[in-house]
């Protein structure tokens, strides 16, 4: 057989390399997918046991406000109402996002539009530093500064949703700010030029064009921040009071899904109702993270379509 024909019939060295590379990258992604699916399956298995094995009504779980899985109520059913934690988690998440967003957007405008040099030299490193501080440090500061201040001003113990909001707001601020900065930087220069050339002032250009064009990116940043706040456990646990009660106001002790999980998971026996109920909370957290992810993707898609 002639050598060219011979060569054509067998995969070349580079073709083999190509196939090997494909295989390796496929294995990597397969491993990641496997891990994610396994975590989901595990959490769902234990989390759903509360409803299937222990026969807890799903609606009762979501809507009742007494959480003491070890105690049975008048009808002999265990008290596993997760509403206080759900309210606590969403409360701190939304409140911290509401406080953080305007400040983050303001900072991002300053860093991109008003003083880019200062922004990249001084503010960017500061924000990156804030991201790197471990959450226990935030919690500790919250415990020794924020809680006493709230106690002094509003009375009570000082623990509660307000303290959690303060700590979380500082924690998510850098995330939201840096994503808002990226969003504003990604707004094409020619939008700004067009607006200025039409007789727009700098401020008009910022709020009519730059903010509007950067809105999907800013919203994505806010949702990222909310996802982080929703999932944060340690710092919140240190300042929220950890009372599984429906919060009466912003300064009464409360709890979140994460704080109940971290404080309770070591004290229960695997397979018991107390343990299963905690897994149900974990499942709820996981589903919420998934929801946040979907929202982020949805915003991203809407942003592209314009």
């Amino acid at each position, binding site marked *: 057989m002639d050598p060219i024909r011979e060569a054509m019939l067998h995969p070349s060295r580079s073709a083999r390399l190509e196939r090997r590379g494909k295989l390796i990258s496929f294995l990597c992604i397969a491993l990641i997918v496997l891990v994610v699916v396994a975590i989901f399956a595990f959490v769902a298995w234990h989390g759903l046991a509360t409803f299937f094995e222990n026969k807890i009504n799903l609606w009762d779980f979501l809507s009742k406000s007494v959480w003491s899985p070890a105690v049975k109520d008048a009808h002999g059913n265990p008290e596993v109402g997760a509403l206080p934690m759900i309210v606590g988690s969403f409360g701190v998440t939304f409140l911290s996002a509401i406080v953080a967003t305007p400040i983050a957007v303001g900072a991002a405008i300053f860093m991109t539009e008003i003083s880019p040099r200062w922004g990249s030299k001084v503010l960017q490193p500061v924000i990156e530093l804030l991201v790197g501080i471990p959450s226990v440090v935030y919690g500790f500061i919250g415990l020794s500064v924020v809680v006493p201040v709230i106690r002094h001003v509003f009375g009570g113990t000082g623990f509660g949703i307000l303290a959690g909001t303060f700590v979380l707001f500082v924690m998510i601020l850098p995330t939201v700010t840096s994503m808002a900065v990226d969003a504003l930087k990604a707004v094409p220069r020619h939008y700004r030029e*067009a607006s200025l050339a039409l007789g727009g002032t700098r401020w008009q250009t910022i709020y*009519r064009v730059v903010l509007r064009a950067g809105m999907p990116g800013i919203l994505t940043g806010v949702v990222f921040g909310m996802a982080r706040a929703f999932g944060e456990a340690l710092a919140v646990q240190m300042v929220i009071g950890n009372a599984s009660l429906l919060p009466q106001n912003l300064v009464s002790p409360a709890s979140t899904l994460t704080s109940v999980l971290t404080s309770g998971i070591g004290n229960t026996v695997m397979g018991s109702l107390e343990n299963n109920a905690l897994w149900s909370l974990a499942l709820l957290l996981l589903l919420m993270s998934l929801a946040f992810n979907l929202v982020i993707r949805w915003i991203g898609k809407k942003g592209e379509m314009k």
Partner: protein
Amino acid sequence: MAKTKVITSENVKLHYGDFEALHGINLDFAEHEITALIGPSGCGKSTYLRCLNRMNDLIPTARVEGDIRLRGQDIYAPSQDVVQLRKSVGMVFQQPNPFPFSIYENVVYGLRLAGVKDRAVLDEAVETSLQQAAIWDEVKDKLHESALSLSGGQQQRVVIGRVLAVKPEVILMDEPTSALDPISSSQIENMLLALRHDYTIILVTHNMHQASRISDKTAFFLQGRLVEAAPTKQIFLNPAEKETEDYITGRFG
């Protein structure tokens, strides 16, 4: 017959830091004429154009010297309101740059900046501006769709409509057709010929044919200098300078 000068510029120099990009330009623009600025890339024609509405203010290192007047008013005077200047001297860029809003919102943008809220005034402005920009018939049924859904040539005409809505006196155009196909380009050229009756147009172009087709006057720039400015016919048929002739006949550039 001496036409009224709308813009006069005398000894305009521009520095980027230590680098002098314009070496003293003297050029006047007559009312209701199209002036084409031609020259090879990097010759300073766009830079000069951006001096006329002070867009170079946006570049921190740029410094403008000399005297530029709009109807006798020094536009670099400390008392000059830049916002007001840019309303009188509109600008169209090389790349069509509509905002990511609807066509309608794009056109009324300048009016909204000025605080116009009356719906009837805005509607009226959209129709007249887009008609002047020769795009009304193509978009009148989809004014509330995104301007980004249009083709490049349509976008550029909407952008021109957006400038016209502000009712400027002078329109600066920085290679407005160089990103467009020949049909879109010729639509825009025809539109410019019609607009000339109401506006003073200053057009930077790389396209020699475009300059010869539509401009009344042509100015040839080379390496930051103004080599020659004269009626277009004269520049193309009988240039005074050797450099101009070499450039126009394609011997360099």
